[in-house]
């Protein structure tokens, strides 16, 4: 029997964005918030600073262009919306109007990855690849809702653009205790330390990675879970160190295409630095249009659910050493 709910209720867990922006807006009279009709999370900012809130309606290209125009004139612009559209419909505006002049436009949104019943028009599965290819762009993907606020706050101090990817934001687990980790853009988080294999992940699959590490612990396997929430610039030092500290065994899990996202960025670090590994496996979305279902069903269907993650970690530690 389904419960009755409204969109506002579904979105309520995203309130951290709205609260953070309202607080920052009070501190900075040059902070503007723009949205292409995805403003439900932004009511606090909208109601407190109506003159600095712009809802352009269904017009992603103009939304990003207007944000750039504001930023050219000394303002900080936050664009909030659904990432499949901001990352693709407005990609050229992001590239030429924001990244080329390196303007402080902060793009934050939801629907990164296979986030349920929307279907492939409404899943951003290429977005991290697209954004990471842009000069001057910082690219993040965040699973912990509290961290979203912290990163948004830090981004206000950056002179250039940033992309902040969320999944749905309605059922994210708080992963980290306050102050447990030093949150700094460009630094990965060792969410759980381990010595047999490193499982790199970001965003919504961090929780699943921690569950998989629990499973392996029962078998006596020590899994390091790295929340590599900044994909660009990548924390190369942590990648290189994890290779030597976890026996050269890597698994990368992400709610993104397996090529072009975090796995690709980690393999670039490995290759560029001559790191030798005993095993490397990518878990994520294959080159398919994913279909309908809930998040967990979709991950299981496409080979990167919890059971697949556990299996991949087992394979990783069983692989013979190559040297």
């Amino acid at each position, binding site marked *: 029997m389904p419960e009755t709910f409204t969109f506002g209720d579904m979105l309520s867990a995203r309130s951290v964005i709205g609260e953070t922006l309202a607080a920052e807006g009070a501190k900075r009279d040059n902070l*503007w918030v723009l949205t292409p009709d995805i403003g439900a999370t932004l009511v606090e900012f909208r109601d407190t600073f109506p*003159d*600095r809130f*712009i809802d*352009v*309606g269904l*017009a992603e*290209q*103009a939304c*990003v*262009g*207007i*944000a*750039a*125009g*504001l*930023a*050219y*004139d*000394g*303002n900080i*612009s936050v664009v909030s919306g659904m990432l499949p559209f901001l990352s693709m419909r407005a990609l*050229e*505006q992001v590239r*030429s*109007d924001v990244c*080329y*002049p*390196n303007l402080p436009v902060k793009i934050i949104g939801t629907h990164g990855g296979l986030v349920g019943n929307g279907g492939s028009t409404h899943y951003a599965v290429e977005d991290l690849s697209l954004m990471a290819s842009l000069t001057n762009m910082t690219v993040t993907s965040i699973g912990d809702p509290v961290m979203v606020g912290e990163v948004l706050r830090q981004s206000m101090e950056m002179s250039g653009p940033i992309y902040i990817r969320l999944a749905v934001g309605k059922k994210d687990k708080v992963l980290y205790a306050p102050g447990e980790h030093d949150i700094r853009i460009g630094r990965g988080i060792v969410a759980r330390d381990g010595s047999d294999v490193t499982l790199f992940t970001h965003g919504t699959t961090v929780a699943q990675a921690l569950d998989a590490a629990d499973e392996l612990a029962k078998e006596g396997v020590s899994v390091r879970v790295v929340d590599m929430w900044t994909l660009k610039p990548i924390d190369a030092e942590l990648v290189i160190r994890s290779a030597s500290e976890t026996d050269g065994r890597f698994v990368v899990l992400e709610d993104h295409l397996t090529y072009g996202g975090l796995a690709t960025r980690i393999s670039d670090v490995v290759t560029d630095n001559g790191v030798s590994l005993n095993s490397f496996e990518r878990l994520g979305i294959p080159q398919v249009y994913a279909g309908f279902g809930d998040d967990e069903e979709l991950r299981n269907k496409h080979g990167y659910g919890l059971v697949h993650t556990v299996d991949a970690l087992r394979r990783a530690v069983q692989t013979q050493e190559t040297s």
Partner: protein
Amino acid sequence: MTTAGIDPGEHHSVAELEDLAYELRRKLLELCGTYEGAVHIGGDMSVADILTALFHHGLRVDPDDISNPNRDRFLLSKGHAAVCMYIAMAIRGFFEYDDIVATYGQLDSAYGMHPCKVQLPGVEASTGSLGHGLPLAVGMALSARGRGEKHRVITLLGDGETGEGSVWEAVMAGRSNRLGNLVAIVDRNRQMMTSFAEERVMFEPYPDKWRAFGWNVVEIDGHDMSQLVSAIDDLPDADSDVPTVLICETVKGKGVDFMERNLAWHAGSLNPTDLERALTALDASRTKENA
């Protein structure tokens, strides 16, 4: 009409502005005869009068104070007319014309086919890809409103460019946000790169499209300096609440008979013989109009 502390600095008669537009066209042709690559000379010539009217009459800007917050902002949305803007700005005192001629298109030059704010301070925005200038202008106009500043934000678009959907997104945003400080100028030369506009894209009834979106529409001859000056002088106050579009009927390649309305002259280069022909044609055209 001077407001907010910036004087236009120059007060020219229409005849003097016409002389400045002639100088701009002459310099454009000379660059086209110097630079070995293609110059977008057709679209440059069609906006030469508009840019002269702006940089020597309409825009409250100061070449010696390019960051003054009260300056009018000008964005060249049709970025491929960059050379015309560079030279118009050089004649106004922003840049050295000789630097443009000496370095245009070369490695490490600030002057390239499409303008870059980062490489060329004084330019207000990096443009080139079409359909980007008006959204940027809306953002700048909102910013001015937010700060209570009285300057205008003016952007020049090609008519072909207004085929881009992002233009109309911004047209709606400009109206919805009541930006009377926002001015779009359309260079209605009725040519795109490879075809005549109405043959491929039915823009007409063109002014009605802007009217239907709620803008204040002014239709003028974009080569008639007195009409340009009047249209600029008659712009609504910046604190009014309806944006204005000046639809300027123009001729691509204006001033050189063999370039006018000729699809071959969207862009090109002139050898010494053809440069002489072009300059002679420019003088003849000027004599005819003065007669």
